[in-house]
């Protein structure tokens, strides 16, 4: 069945395309500016003009820094972000998965109280816990360290990862768990041998969610990590933009570099993301 174009449909499409363009304007400025030279970006009136040529110096500068101007490159900070995000994502996903498993399939006395209490964690604003958080980290000897920040993200991730996994596991037939228990599995081997192998869609959702959030997070990172050589890319990016002469081309290039990993994660796992979010809503 083909739909004929009538004025109504054409109007709708024009409107949609306009909105799409509006949405893409910042992305255009980002891309265009990152490809310009320093001389080109200084004239703000030419913000909309496409770059004169493909100049990749800004990317090189953002990556390696310009020592003579006292600018540090982002390469070190990008690695810091990886060292922070990867373990924090993996740990919080695993914890969420275990929590979700127990809450969904081993309903213990008090589970109906514990679960809502855990969810409360999602609604605690970052700012309100910032000072006690840094003090606590210092007290346990993790102040100013990457592992301290990892711990913070793991703990802060527990509510949402638990929620997603609990709902995901609620859709897994309890018969499977019971069959495994009768076959001789205990609480952990049921998880490891039966539930975990079925958890891929749940993990994809949680990993994308956690990876993006932790990678993009700024406030905890800037508060906890004072040493520039430890800071993740989000914090370093601000430092890049904060120097006296704004090298906008370099800042934009740095922003693109910072955005690439989350985009990659979404491109690779995205199709599972949609499926995972919809899991159970449609009968398979």
């Amino acid at each position, binding site marked *: 069945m083909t739909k004929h174009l009538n004025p109504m449909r054409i109007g709708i499409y024009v409107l949609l395309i306009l909105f799409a363009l509006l949405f893409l304007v910042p992305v255009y400025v980002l891309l265009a500016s990152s490809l310009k030279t320093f001389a080109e970006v200084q004239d703000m009136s030419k913000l909309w003009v496409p770059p004169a040529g493909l100049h990749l110096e800004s990317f090189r500068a953002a990556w390696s820094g310009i020592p003579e101007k006292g600018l540090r490159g982002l390469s070190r900070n990008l690695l810091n972000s990886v060292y922070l995000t990867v373990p924090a994502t993996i740990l919080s996903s695993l914890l969420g998965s275990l929590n979700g498993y127990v809450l969904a399939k081993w309903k213990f006395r008090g589970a109906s109280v514990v679960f809502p209490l855990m969810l409360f964690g999602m609604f605690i604003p970052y700012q309100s816990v910032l000072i006690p958080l840094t003090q606590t980290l210092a007290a346990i000897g993790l102040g100013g360290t990457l592992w301290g920040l990892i711990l913070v993200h793991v703990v802060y991730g527990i509510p949402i990862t638990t929620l997603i996994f609990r709902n995901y596991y609620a859709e897994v*037939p309890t*018969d*499977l768990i*019971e*069959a*495994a*228990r*009768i*076959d*001789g*599995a*205990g609480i952990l*081997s049921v998880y490891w*041998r*039966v539930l975990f*192998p*079925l958890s891929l869609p749940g993990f994809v959702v949680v990993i994308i969610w956690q990876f993006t959030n932790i990678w993009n997070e700024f406030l905890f990172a800037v508060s906890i990590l004072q040493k520039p050589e430890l800071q993740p890319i989000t914090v370093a990016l601000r430092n890049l933009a904060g120097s006296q002469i704004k090298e906008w081309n370099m800042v934009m290039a740095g922003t693109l570099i910072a955005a690439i990993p989350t985009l990659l994660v979404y491109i690779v796992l995205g199709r599972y993301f949609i499926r995972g979010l919809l899991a159970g809503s449609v009968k398979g």
Partner: protein
Amino acid sequence: MASVTYEHVYKKFGNVIAVNDMNIEIADKEFLVFVGPSGCGKTTSLRLLAGLEEITSGDIYIGDKLVNDVPPKDRDIAMVFQSYALYPHMSVYDNMAFGLRLHKTPKDEIDRRVKAAAGVLGIEPLLDRKPKQLSGGQRQRVAVGRAIVRQPKVFLFDEPLSNLDAKLRVQTRAELSKLHKRLATTFIYVTHDQVEAMTMATRIAVIRDGILQQLAPPQKLYDLPDNVFVAGFIGSPSMNFFDATLVEQDGKLFVVSDTFKLQVPVEKMGTYKEYKGQEVIFGIRPEDIHIKAYMPPGVVSADMKGKVDVTELMGNEIFLYLFTGKKPFIARVDPRAHVSPGDIIDLSINMGNMHLFDPKTERAIR
């Protein structure tokens, strides 16, 4: 191989009593079927034995061992679920080997047992497939295979045939009976289908509202039901029940209602005499109601009339839906009978197979 004993077992879910004072002794190698309407507690009884639910009070023994606090994995049982509960990420082989691997069985022993079970069930060509590549009947076999490789003391079946189509169900029923003979192990089987119960069981436990109604071999359950519920539940179409009175007249005993008067056979008079003059529930199975012209010989019969409402020809027999007065009842009659709706026909009741129940307790009068 082991016996199973339920001793005063109760299970409560909040205020609901799902299993109410269950006492059953199941002998080694028995094929016991729990049957009852849905929600009667039969599945809960099985799950208590499996260890998937905790007993509220009472004791369950497998063999001589009290298993109240033994986790499912240490009870040495295997269970076939209604949904089959095959592990979707494992091949058929791995599904069957799963329990053995958990029990650290040597590899060659696992291989031998899985292949032997697959041979018995005719699923060797499927061993490398995943469950979703199998038909319903094949999945059911794999679920049974997963249970038998374990060589458990007791097999538990929770409505294993209800997801199969009618033809496959009949076939699988016979195969399960054969399997029971071959394995010579205790089978405990839950179903709501009284035909499954009748065809496979060595004994049937009829349960209603968490209470065991009667525990007996199939034929005894059919011939001598203990109460109105069992009488009505076992057999299809169900037994007919009529409110009636026992009347003594000229030294004979009659079952009397507004519309019929049936003489009680002489040999049964002794049993029923003490109820004379009292109200009773008169029960008679549809196959014990004959059209007078086609009455088989040698039956102690009594006559009554019925008005035909609907006829259903089954080929080998006819189901007649009849009325006596305003009371509907069913007869299974000879297929040669030519009757039409609206006819008033002469019936012969086989009083040798009559049942009487006390209307207050609903218990059989014997």
